[in-house]
């Protein structure tokens, strides 16, 4: 039957034209690859900063007390030299500051020694940056401003694309017409239920 042989070919061509999924998957995949680095930065920093009350996500704190032998020289520079020798610090201080009759501050880039010249007690305090986390937090909180605002905006748009393209990647019962819809609704319900239960802002 002649027309019986033609009809199916027409339907196949129409279906091919409407098949957007290979393009969607390719875009989803490549944008996903591109977003990996930024996702690591934002997720790691998010975890770190979210628990700010439990720890300092940017710095390790240094707090020590030392006792020097007395007497210390009366001249500030000589007292600083003597104190640092006793503390086995070979680095030169950025500043030697006479804060009061009994307090001499020896300031370094990452720490300060507060020397009580009368009692010989030294409070050493400072902070050392957590190398990767500090940078990640700096980026996440957009402390640098300027061009990073554009990067962050693009990343947010990419995340939205990944979220919505993900909805349409799989057809059928595991996609939006079945399991996908249920899981998607469950995910959307999390913030809604939280706002309802907590009373919201």
């Amino acid at each position, binding site marked *: 039957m002649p027309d019986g042989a033609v009809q199916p070919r027409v339907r196949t061509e129409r279906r091919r034209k409407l098949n957007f999924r290979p393009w969607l998957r390719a875009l989803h995949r490549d944008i996903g690859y591109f977003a990996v680095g930024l996702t690591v930065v934002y997720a790691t920093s998010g975890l770190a*900063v979210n628990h*700010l*009350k439990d720890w*300092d*996500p*940017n*710095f390790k*704190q240094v*707090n020590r007390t030392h006792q020097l032998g007395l007497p210390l020289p009366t001249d500030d520079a000589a007292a600083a030299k003597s104190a640092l020798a006793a503390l086995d610090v070979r680095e030169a201080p*950025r*500043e030697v*500051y*006479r*804060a*009061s009759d009994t*307090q001499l*501050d020896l*300031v370094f880039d990452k*720490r*300060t020694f*507060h020397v009580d010249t009368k009692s010989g007690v030294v*409070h050493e*305090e*400072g*902070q050392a940056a957590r190398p990767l986390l500090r940078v990640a*937090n700096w980026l996440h909180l957009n*402390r640098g401003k300027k061009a990073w605002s554009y990067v962050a905006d693009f990343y947010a748009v990419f995340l939205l694309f990944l979220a919505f393209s993900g909805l349409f990647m799989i057809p059928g019962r595991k996609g939006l017409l079945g399991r996908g819809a249920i899981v998607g609704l469950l995910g959307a319900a999390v913030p809604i239920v939280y706002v309802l239960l907590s009373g919201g*802002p």
Partner: protein
Amino acid sequence: MNRFNPEFEQALARRRFIQAAAGGTVIMALGSLYVLSDDLTREAKAQTRNDGRPRLPPGQRVIEALKPMGGEPGDPSPGNYRLRVHGEVDAPFELGFAELLALPQIEQALDVHCVTTWSVLGAKWQGVRVADLAERAKLKKSARYVIFEAAHGYTSNVALRDALKPSVMVAHRLNGTPLARAHGAPVRAVLPEFYFWKSAKWLTGIRFSSHDEPGYWETRGYSNHADPWKEERYA
């Protein structure tokens, strides 16, 4: 029932799982109760301030020492330090660290309350009253608000009447030792009646203003007034 029956084994495994899950839940609940019922917090909850309010604001838990809460550090150098007092005043001035130390000093035991729910009670702060600095700067009648300015553009804002309370100060020593870098060395503001973000670290200026100017956190979703006893955490 046959001991080696697969259905029996499956039921047993399920029972073990439920028992383990229940046990874990009980342990976690007891752990939470332990955390919630620490002695310092319990004692503080039983106390009342002179103004009749409870010593511990709602939703707070007492810890022993300040926690460093981050922020972009300022220059800790006392030699480079300058405090600028300016704005709606007739006699603006700047002070170096030594000049600040030469002003009349006070030491106060103050309670401070962080918006992240920890409180430190009775820490001894040494420094200068903001009211004394305001008096020296000779406020104009137009001054209504105080903006605390700090390193890297951080600011916090309060009404003038709140900033001039005797408990409000700029501090350079805490519990007998110089202020640590993590807590804003060499000088920070201390405003004990507000959540602690109002107490700007690495303080560089006190500006008196005719109008309110919400600060760093106040423009990022936190309360403009920040009263811990009203739990004004968020806008």
